[in-house]
């Protein structure tokens, strides 16, 4: 009797081995790498979704392919797209999501809900705004990389390391969107010399979930310095009828706030470490005094550029993308007003004070 029970139990246990009979193999999934969201050309109240994915099958004529569909929301688009393909689509490994400028200006939160709700959707998926249509960008074939989405993913990383654009992931965006005292920002992709060249060097500024403006060139670097995201990259200045370049080597920011007679003063110290990489006006630099003098000049230049970016944020846009509000909230909870912080920010007096430290001069004196 006991033997029969044992055999029976064993049989039941063995049956569990067949539990994976209907599992979907990784090779049989259609793994989406990039997602682009546009406004539909024909139908202005509908969106146009594009997915880019690698065709894993070795015999496929192309290594990668894109599908597009018109739909009112991302959920609907997923349904439409599934009808077009022969495999189950997996959205859990998307690396880059590109919003076209119009979509970003209309607000992107409608698309993000479905991303936050999916349990396996990656929190580290990167966001970017494209100057033109996202579909053009996703169908582009960069000469140097197989997948445009990987290309963009790495390119954002590189520009982040060069202190030009922030890395905005799904998680960051949702944090900056929900938290009081900071407004979101993300990389803004423009075209370079022609439409086959991409330039990931600008920053799209958001108010809530709507894009309002973008920073480029010196402003976008100033923006990164203000955010305290100082990594590397070459920063060039026109000084004394020549050019001075510094190689950034990291740095930090320190924000203090003070209420004087009901006016909000924000003291922002920025420390920038760097190495001299170009100094055309004068060759000989090996003395503590000339380095000190150069540091002071650079500080003035940087301060000007920071002021410029801050002026746009404070006066033109009235939008705190830097995140001063979080400090004001922490230091003066009684003054801070989450609803109208942007107005308070516009009125605040910001004292920004960069400190440049040149660590090395290279191998000429």
């Amino acid at each position, binding site marked *: 009797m006991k033997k029969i029970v044992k055999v029976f139990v064993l049989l039941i246990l063995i049956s569990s081995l067949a539990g994976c009979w209907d599992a979907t193999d990784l090779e049989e999934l259609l793994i989406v790498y990039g997602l682009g969201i546009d406004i539909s050309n024909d139908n202005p109240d509908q969106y146009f979704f594009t997915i880019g994915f690698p065709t894993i099958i070795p015999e496929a004529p192309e290594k990668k392919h894109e599908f597009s569909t018109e739909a009112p929301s991302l959920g609907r688009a997923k349904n439409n797209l599934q009808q077009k393909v022969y495999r189950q689509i997996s959205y859990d490994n998307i690396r880059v999501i590109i919003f076209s400028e119009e979509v970003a200006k209309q607000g992107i939160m409608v698309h993000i809900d479905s991303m936050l709700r999916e349990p396996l959707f990656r*929190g*580290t998926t990167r966001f970017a705004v494209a100057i033109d249509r996202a579909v053009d960008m996703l169908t582009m074939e960069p000469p140097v990389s197989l997948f445009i989405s990987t290309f963009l993913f790495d390119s954002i990383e590189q520009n982040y390391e060069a202190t030009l654009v922030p890395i905005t992931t799904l998680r960051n965006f949702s944090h900056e969107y*929900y938290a009081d005292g900071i407004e979101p920002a993300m990389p803004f992709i423009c075209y370079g010399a022609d439409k086959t060249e991409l330039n990931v060097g600008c920053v799209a500024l958001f108010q809530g979930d709507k894009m309002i403006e973008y920073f480029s060139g010196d402003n976008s670097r100033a923006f990164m310095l203000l955010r305290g995201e100082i990594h590397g990259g070459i920063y060039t200045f026109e000084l004394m009828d020549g050019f001075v370049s510094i190689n950034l080597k990291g740095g930090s920011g320190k924000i203090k706030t003070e209420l004087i007679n009901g006016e909000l003063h924000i003291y922002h110290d920025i420390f920038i470490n760097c190495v001299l990489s170009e100094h055309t006006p004068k060759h000989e630099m090996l003395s503590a005094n000339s380095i000190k003098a150069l540091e002071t000049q650079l500080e003035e230049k940087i301060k000007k550029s920071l002021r410029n970016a801050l002026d746009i944020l404070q006066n033109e846009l009235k939008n705190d993308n830097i995140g001063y509000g979080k400090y004001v909230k922490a230091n003066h909870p009684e003054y801070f007003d989450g609803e109208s912080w942007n107005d308070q920010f516009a009125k605040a007096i910001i004292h920004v004070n960069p400190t440049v430290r040149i660590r090395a001069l290279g191998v000429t004196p």
Partner: protein
Amino acid sequence: MYQKYRNGEISAIQLHILIISFLICAGVLDLSRLVGAVSQQDAWISVFINGLFISFIMIIIVYTISRFPQYNFLQYISYLLGKPLGYLVAISYCFYAALVTATIIRLLSEMIYTWLLPNTSIYILNFIIVITALYMIRNGLTVLARFNEVIVFMLIPFFVLIFVGLPEASLINLRPIGGAGIVNILKGVVPSFFAFGGSEIVLVYYPYISDKQKPIMKYSVISIMLVTAFYTALVISQMAFYGPQEIQQVLYPSISYLSASIFPVIERLELFFTIFWIFTVLATIGIQYLASCIVLQNIFVAKKTSFFAYILAPVIYLLSLYPQNTAEVVDFGDTIGKIYTFYGLALPLLLLIMYFIKEKKSIDKKNS
């Protein structure tokens, strides 16, 4: 002293471990969201205060029951509260324990359903969990305690995972400290109280400790303090990471926390976390389940608990299938949490008071 009790023995250290692994369970997942909803950025202070409070209750519990080293749960409550009331409390405790077990099983399967096996039906998941729990406890307390002793090492990586998100976190999210106001901080103690639910199992397990001469009071309080430290660190790190506003938008902050940063080698950190979490929760389920069986055994004066373990299994299984969706599971959990207020808070205090009254009476008797 071994083999003195009918039903296996545990050592004082094992009790210590039982408390730790029992307290760290389902509550971990959304603690910081629930508490953060009330006391904002000061959630961690609420959790900490609550930890101190629970330690205090623990002192009361251990103080009271250590006066009755030879009595089991039923015996000493019958002695203190009178026989009819004692039986009533014991029986209702069984129900309560079974309900809690069912809820935790459901929370676990809910979580597995969401993250790991979205195509497996809940009833299969629950079935597997129930038979695992059954297997864990059918040989009694000694085996369960040993299982916990092994599992407790799983808590170490669990603890390390707290630090994963720190590079992304910023302490500015925790400030202004105390800005939520004392009233809100104290109100925040209420939701965190449920996360710590379970300290009352000492009432059931204490009689089975073999070496009562060891400083059990110290062990119990230390384990509660350890859990408090763990929970406080957890809430701090998550609050620093999300900030009090965003955390309200995340259903299970402890897991989403891990999916938000890129970690080398382990691609999907949240799944890695789940492995440890499942074991911890299984231990919790086993402990709660056995508590119910032990009380039943006390009531019916049976020789073994295994009989009750088998009998309760289908009941618990069906109970765990009762809620229809995640929202109902949460509701169900809240309802049970309210019952917990009686066992975790009122009962220990009641027993302490009764103990003093009875004590006085017996002294009076002796004197007269």
